[in-house]
């Protein structure tokens, strides 16, 4: 049997498969473009139908002009920079505290049980409700904004850490402990990687909590910069173009961050664990 030939054939087949995987990314981009085109199309249609007056529902072109204006007068670039810096700061603090507390909860069962209830209770707190306290404790400044961001996202990080680690298949922890892992090594080399699929899901949401809180805080704790401030001005003077322009900015930042951070990690984990073998 000339199985050399067959091998070559099979190899070619595989090469095709690979390239088709690459072309999938193009189809992904095409999909996104399609979605966006459809959305803008409907929007334009609604505008043309004049269901609502232009100052309630501006056209896509008007919003793009607005984005241009906001970029030109620098409020958008500065706003993005400041907001992202605050977000990064607040979220970093949340991650640090949240993961720490979550681990402590895993370690000390009684504390974990009690704290998990509190954490859920505090997670349901609307971030707006923290604002008055934040002002009392910190005043009208970035610290106050950070406080609100942390309070809105830290409980989500805590719950995520706690649940994700507790849901790790016990056999992994046994095997690791058997090989001498404990303390930080156990956490770093086993708990975190074993919990990653679930951690990503939770952290993504914690990240969104942080966003929500940040924009809310920037609207209420005025510091004259930040996307939330731009949004609040838009609302204060009922300028829909500004509101929509800000929302688009937030949306785009959200997607970009997801793609460069969470999605990357997720895909890596999925391919290692063989989770992308699902529906082949």
């Amino acid at each position, binding site marked *: 049997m000339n199985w050399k030939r067959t091998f070559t054939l099979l190899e070619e087949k595989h090469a095709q498969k690979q390239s088709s995987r690459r072309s999938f990314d193009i189809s992904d981009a095409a999909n996104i473009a399609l979605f966006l085109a459809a959305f803008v199309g409907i929007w334009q249609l609604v505008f043309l139908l004049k269901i609502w007056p232009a100052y309630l529902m501006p056209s896509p072109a008007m919003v793009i002009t607005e984005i241009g204006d906001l970029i030109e007068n620098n409020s958008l670039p500065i706003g993005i920079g400041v907001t992202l810096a605050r977000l990064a700061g607040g979220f970093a603090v949340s991650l640090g505290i949240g993961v720490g507390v979550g681990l402590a909860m895993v370690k000390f069962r009684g504390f974990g049980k009690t704290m998990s209830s509190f954490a859920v209770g505090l997670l349901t707190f609307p971030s707006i409700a923290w604002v008055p306290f934040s002002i009392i404790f910190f005043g009208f400044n970035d610290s106050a904004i950070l406080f609100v961001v942390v309070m809105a996202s830290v409980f989500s990080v805590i719950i995520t850490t706690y649940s994700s680690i507790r849901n790790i298949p016990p056999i992994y922890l046994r*095997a690791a402990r058997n090989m001498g892992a404990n303390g930080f090594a156990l956490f770093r*080399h086993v708990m975190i990687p074993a919990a990653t699929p679930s951690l990503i899901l939770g952290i993504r949401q914690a990240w969104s909590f942080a966003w929500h809180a940040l924009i809310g805080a920037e609207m209420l704790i005025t510091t004259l910069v930040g996307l939330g401030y731009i949004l609040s001005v838009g609302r204060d003077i009922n300028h829909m173009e500004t509101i929509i322009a800000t929302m688009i900015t937030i949306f785009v930042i959200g997607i970009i961050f997801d793609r460069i951070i969470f999605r990357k990690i997720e895909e890596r984990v999925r391919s*290692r664990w063989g989770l992308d073998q699902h529906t082949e």
Partner: protein
Amino acid sequence: MITSEYRQSATAVLKVNEVSKAFQYASPDSQTHVVLNRVSIDVKDGEFVTIVGPSGCGKSTLLNIIAGLESPDSGSILVKGERKVSTSRDRIVIFQEGALFPWLTVLENVEFGLKLAGVSLDKRRQAARHFVDTVQLSRFANSYIYQLSGGMKQRVAIARALAIDPDILLMDEPFAALDVQTRDLLHNQVLHLHETTKKTILFVTHNINEAVLLGDRVVVMSPRTGSIKKEFAISLPRPRDVGSPEMTVIKRQILNELEEDFHFARRETRTETIQ
């Protein structure tokens, strides 16, 4: 080429002391199910003990307790005279199933224990490569776990345990999913390891040939009493021939022991079913 005699002189490096363990049945009346009932074993330094017994008789549970992964309801585990309640790198279990880390490659899995021990990257990688070769998986060093067949996973688990080089190896049906040849090869390698490093080995298996081929002593466990039913010292030199008359006699005896329990268990099951 491998020879060995029963080490009479060695002291008990591992002492299983009246260990008991019970679980609840998941039934409405939540009966208690006594799995281990005052089990005692003394294992001498460098001894190779094989354990046989019907499915569900508590072999894995016993290994886990010895490793410190589960705590007994009563009784204790002594290693070199010291009472142990937690895990340590000197007693490594090769688990019966699914304990490999899916987020690591084969090589990374094998070097995991060394990484924890703080061995430098170069050294541990070298060691890991050696053991991956030993279990015939060099071509799969960079594969992830989901890419392996059942037998390949078992071999990775073996390599991972060997890499750690523990004093006491607790092997839970390590060769169950392997073909005859690979199994033979690994038998030889384990015996060689045992011979050269004087490791103490507890080895669970359902394969009676394997039990008599490898062990200095064969321990038969019984689910009926939840304890050790009988022990057989095998002082034949290695390599042994499973077909030899002496071996056949021992095998017959072991089988008889097992048979007895089995019939007892069947009767029990049947009456229960009728009720």
